[in-house]
């Protein structure tokens, strides 16, 4: 499929440039709160979400910028959310960790580790009960697999045969805790398979590898109506959050993973195959940077929520009492 990799490259670059700007804006105190960057992991969101159709649903974590952008949420609206403005995807109330979009069936960035998993099972249950052939993709880190909510959720999904794609983004660290220090079984697909769920892993730094694995996984969920577990082996190049001094990783390890930068792998392949020239890639970068610039300008110009509206959305509006 000529052109597919180029489109994926562009998507990954959009996430990368967006987040690099977010980091700058955080340092400039334009963006506050906890901000968790996805830099290094872009191939996972782009590779998996590319296999979903509009009707499918998504649930994710606080590390959600990449998922939102890959899902097609408007960059200016996402940036406005980072700024806490009313034009943001969650009216500014959620910020970085809590991006939502009903239009995209994007059921949010959940800040409680493991918190999104039961929700995904429920979305799958609703589809199952209503005879709809839709997939719910649920993203979570490997750290979440130690939580009871992971085990309870995957068991339910398998037991009731619900159409949920469990996507574990294994970046090897849960904050400062390395995989081997949090899991007795570090082969995560094997662990998931204990629940009688088809499970496999893929190279999360290679967007084509992720796409192939996810295509198979999504097709299986759609055909069987039951769950599949996909582990993407990846790495975050930045600290856990902007707040994290990153004292627990070896700098050499980070550098080693940087040689497997998903953007670099994709770019090299595009050039090798003659699907793009250096100039094409530079042009894409220019366009993407312009889009990021425009998103910041839109966010700067966006309005603040009126303080009088503080208590809106605590309960549904327009309900007769």
């Amino acid at each position, binding site marked *: 499929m000529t052109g597919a990799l180029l489109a994926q490259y562009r998507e990954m670059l959009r996430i990368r440039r967006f987040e690099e700007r977010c980091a700058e804006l955080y340092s400039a105190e334009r963006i*506050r709160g906890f901000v968790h960057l996805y830099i290094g992991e872009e191939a996972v969101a782009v590779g998996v979400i590319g296999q979903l159709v509009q009707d499918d649903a998504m649930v994710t974590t606080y590390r959600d910028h990449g998922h939102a952008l890959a899902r097609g949420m408007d960059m200016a609206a996402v940036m406005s959310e980072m700024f806490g403005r009313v034009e943001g995807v969650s009216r500014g109330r*959620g910020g970085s960790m809590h991006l939502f979009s009903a239009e995209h069936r994007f059921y949010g960035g959940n800040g409680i580790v493991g918190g999104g998993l039961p929700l995904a099972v429920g979305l799958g249950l609703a589809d199952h009960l209503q005879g709809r052939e839709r997939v719910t993709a649920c993203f979570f880190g490997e750290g979440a697999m130690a939580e009871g909510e992971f085990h309870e959720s995957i068991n339910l999904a398998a037991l009731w045969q619900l159409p949920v794609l469990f996507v574990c983004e294994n970046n090897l660290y849960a904050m400062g805790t390395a995989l081997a220090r949090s899991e007795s079984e570090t082969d995560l697909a094997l662990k998931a398979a204990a629940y009688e769920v088809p499970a496999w892993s893929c190279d999360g730094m290679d967007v084509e590898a992720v796409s192939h694995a996810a295509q198979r996984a999504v097709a299986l969920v759609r055909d069987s109506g039951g769950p599949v577990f996909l582990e993407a082996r990846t790495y975050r190049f930045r600290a856990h959050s902007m707040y994290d001094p990153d004292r627990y990783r070896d700098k050499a390890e980070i550098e080693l993973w940087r040689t497997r930068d998903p953007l670099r792998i994709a770019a090299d392949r595009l050039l090798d195959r003659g699907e793009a020239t250096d100039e094409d890639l530079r042009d894409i970068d220019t366009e993407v940077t312009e889009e990021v610039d425009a998103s910041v300008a839109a966010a700067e110009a966006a309005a603040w929520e009126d303080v009088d509206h503080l208590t809106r959305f605590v309960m549904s509006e327009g309900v007769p009492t």
Partner: protein
Amino acid sequence: MTAPTSVRPTTYREAIREAMREAMRRDDRVFLMGEDVGRYGGGFGVSLGLLEEFGEDRVRDTPLSESGFVGAGIGAALGGMRPIVEIMTVNFSLLALDQILNTAATLLHMSGGQFNVPLVIRMTTGGGRQLAAQHSHSLEGYYAHIPGLRVLAPATIEDAYGMLEPALADPDPVVIFEHGSLYNEKGTLPDPPTAVPLEGAAVRRAGTDVTLVTSGGCLGRCLDAADDLAGSGISAEVIDLRSLRPIDDDTVGASVSRTHRAIVVDEGWRSVGMSAEVAARIAERCFYDLDAPVGRVAAVEVPIPYPRHLEAAALPSAERIAAAARKAVLGDG
């Protein structure tokens, strides 16, 4: 007690770390466990350096498994250890609430007095850092509701340091709330440190016209409000509850009976929370001494929003506290 010979500069964060270090040096049964307490140094940096000193056995990083490791803390306490379990924030503690309520707090009673649980749980609480609706709440009231627990809210460096030792000596479970905005607070500790009691509220500022009753992260805001009120000739007494369970009714009651007015200040939501409890106790005890209705300044009933202006509007501020006190003293007009 020897008189303090000197003072040493420290922070709220370092004071807790120092207290844990001394507890672990003093007593082999004491160990620390929680998410990222070791390699990372604690989600808020409280335990930084302890792993290096005490090793992985006694500074145990846990997987993300709040119910599991809090429950394991209960078991270890039953088995003769003196665990300090750190939960990163109170929002995440809800995953362990079952273990805390249904096991830690009830075991002594259910077993007819046979099994006590000498466990200390520390957790961060509070908002004000733009962390939005899953990282900002003050749920102290949930825990203060539970018979079988002792619940502490150190608001000062001395309490942050001093409460740990008696908490570890307590035969029953103790929950300690550390407000996230206090960790960087600078101050001093007497050297050698003086012991602090676990129970008993403290009068942090004496006054005659109105009593501000508060705890934890709101103490500073109440003291600021008292400064402001002093400027307009109103003398506010500020009481730091220190212990949220049990509550020291005597200190609060004696103060309100003198000032005849009370404002209860709490960062938790207003309904059915700490402020409701304290206000009810004042009404029960001081009704005939009151010259104004008991006032409350609490969090607005909304999940805490991300933008600074909305978060500020949702949380108690020195301005809101001072305004409530003025209203109590001067009346509505």
